[in-house]
């Protein structure tokens, strides 16, 4: 049963070796947790965190994906009971035909509900619906003492777990409130924005009219084109908005996997020239303005899921994702950060810009009201470390923060300054897990 092997995050950068244990039933997990040695225990889902959040070097990593049963579905209350290892992909396939959609969807369906809670994930609807944790009405948490506690949003431990990066316990089960939808399609408006000012103005003025909003920025454009982008916004489509041919099968959801990236990609395939060419072509191909286009949920939310293992295209050195949020009013910081990225020419496929709404009560939950930018960067350039350290300083000076589910290189000193409620969270965690049974490489690296 036990299996010692190397685990890495989605960015494939800093792996470590741990003992992997497939999650069994509750009793087996209780035994694992109560017998853990000092290297501790950590739950792992589908491994989509970019950095070391789902690694526990030298310790035990429980693979939760085998606990993937949906336990109850109530189409009246919209409440769904499920095990922590259920993936959003599985939920969409099962529930869309019943007219239910996940309350929050990130850029991939390949995440588990346990992971979605641990990272308090967000999606294109954060400005109206908030993060994932807000839609969780209860969860069963296996704690360090071997007890299974049913937590509701009234409890502090609930909010220490939402965004708590798996460090409070194992999410065995959760009850999540879904959204009602009439179709598996979205009604999408697309606008091409020639520069950052134009983009931010459109988003600030119009986002509130849409359920979903996100902009893709070409971070290699500079000068008067700095921040040129394509803004896509939309709503879940109602049946009468669909073309006639789709109306009879409005809730069909059969996303296809188009390709699998081959296992070996050379380093440096994504260089400044190839990425600049891609970004240029992508910008040119977008319509100046298009209203009311019908897109499938898969195409609108999860374009990258069409290529399995797409993380391989960055080659053996891997890549990282840098995602930060700065408060509204810190638009100058956002501009400076994009300028710094553009000036150093750190090749990045499109960066994603979005506006966050209200924070969740999670102590370490990432989203706070403001602008969030996320971009992928290949590892390799000598300037990268220094550039990102300088970006950290910009983000900190503006009162912003970075997203732990993406992080693989933040200095511990910056972490404490970005998350002012860290000490409060530590107190709740200490009360629930005084010996630090639940731990991870990320926790050790950041001194959480």
């Amino acid at each position, binding site marked *: 049963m036990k299996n010692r092997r*190397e685990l890495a995050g989605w960015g494939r950068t800093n*792996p*470590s*070796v741990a003992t992997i244990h497939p999650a069994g039933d509750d009793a087996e997990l209780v035994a694992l947790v109560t017998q853990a040695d000092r290297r501790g225990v950590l739950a792992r889902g589908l491994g989509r965190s970019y950095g070391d959040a789902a690694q526990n070097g030298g310790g035990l990593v429980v693979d939760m994906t085998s606990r993937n049963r949906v336990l109850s579905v109530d189409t009246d209350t919209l409440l769904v009971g499920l095990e922590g290892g259920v993936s959003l992909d599985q939920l969409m396939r099962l529930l869309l035909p019943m007219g239910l959609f996940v309350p929050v969807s990130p850029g991939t369906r390949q995440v588990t509900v346990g992971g979605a809670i641990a990272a308090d994930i967000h999606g294109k609807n954060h400005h109206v619906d908030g993060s994932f944790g807000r839609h969780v009405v209860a969860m069963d948490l296996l704690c360090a003492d071997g007890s299974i506690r049913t937590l509701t949003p009234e409890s502090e431990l609930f909010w220490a777990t939402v965004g708590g990066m798996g460090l409070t316990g194992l999410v065995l089960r959760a009850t999540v409130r879904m959204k009602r939808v009439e179709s598996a399609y979205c009604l999408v408006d697309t606008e091409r924005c020639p520069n950052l000012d134009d983009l931010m103005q459109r988003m600030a003025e119009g986002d509130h009219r849409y359920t979903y909003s996100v902009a893709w920025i070409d971070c290699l454009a500079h000068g008067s084109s700095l921040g040129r982008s394509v803004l896509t916004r939309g709503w879940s489509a109602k049946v009468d908005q669909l073309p006639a041919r789709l109306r009879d099968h409005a809730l069909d959801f059969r996303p296809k996997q188009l390709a699998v990236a081959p296992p070996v990609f050379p380093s440096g395939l994504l260089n400044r020239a190839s990425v600049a060419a891609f970004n240029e072509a992508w910008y040119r191909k977008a319509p100046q303005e298009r209203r009311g286009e019908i897109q499938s949920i898969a195409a609108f939310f999860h374009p990258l899921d069409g290529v399995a293992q797409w993380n391989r295209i960055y080659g053996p050195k891997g890549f990282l994702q840098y995602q930060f949020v700065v408060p509204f009013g810190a638009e100058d910081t956002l501009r400076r950060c994009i300028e710094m990225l553009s000036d150093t020419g750190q090749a990045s496929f499109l960066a994603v810009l979005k506006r966050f709404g209200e924070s969740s009560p999670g102590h370490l939950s990432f989203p706070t009201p403001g602008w969030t930018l996320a971009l992928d960067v290949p590892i390799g350039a000598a300037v990268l470390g220094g550039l*990102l350290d300088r970006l950290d300083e910009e983000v900190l000076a503006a009162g912003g923060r970075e997203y732990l589910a993406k992080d693989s290189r933040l*200095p511990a*000193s910056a972490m404490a300054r970005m998350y002012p409620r860290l000490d409060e969270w530590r107190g709740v965690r200490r009360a629930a897990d005084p010996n630090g049974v639940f731990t991870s490489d990320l926790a*050790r690296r950041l*001194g959480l």
Partner: protein
Amino acid sequence: MKDAIGNVQRVVVLGGTSDIALATVRRLVGQRQDVQVTLAARAGDRRVAAASSLEAMGMKVDEVDFEAADRTSYEHAIASAFEAGGDVDVVIVAFGVLGDQERAWQDLDAALDLVQVNYTAAVACGVLVAKRLREQGHGAIIAMSSVAGERPRKSNFVYGSTKAGLDAFYTGLGDAIAADGVQVLVVRPGFVHSKMTDGLAAAPLSQTPEQVAEIIVEGLAAGRQTVWAPAKMRWVMSGLRHLPRAVFTRLPV
């Protein structure tokens, strides 16, 4: 824990006054200076000076007594180095002596002293450090070998034999613990201008400790198991190793 960029958080140096090791630490910490370094070395002015030079760069330095001739000393030093903080990212095995070649092959005590420090203690430390790093599931060991181990020559074969033994041990150790997430990098420098070679005439392809450090840090980041310093020393030594003995012994090396 080493991060995605290669920034390290904790480094332990066994033989903490080694010029090459200190240059490697300075290079390894690069842009971020908030690194915890443990210098295990004989107590004295040299260790104090080494510690303060790193502290002046912003590193946090602990000093631990370490005596390569004494088993209880290195067992204690490694235990306390690992227990003094979080996970250790890099351990540099840098202690060693050049010895007096003429005494070392004729005087029993001199020979055994050299073997104890350069080989026996190096193997012992390798065993102890490997156990700790395996428990972490990640980390790296940098072991200072020498080109002198590649082909024994009359002028320093006792030293060379200890380095040949060290080299074989750490090369094999690297294969043995790769599956535990631990990288072992064996470093084979040629002549390096350092306190060890002070007063000796420099050999061809001689290097500064900083040049060796650069090669080490690049090799570490690239995941290599062996590096030569300078890189072309590999081809020089490969040539020398295959020379017929009758020719080799006539060379002025």
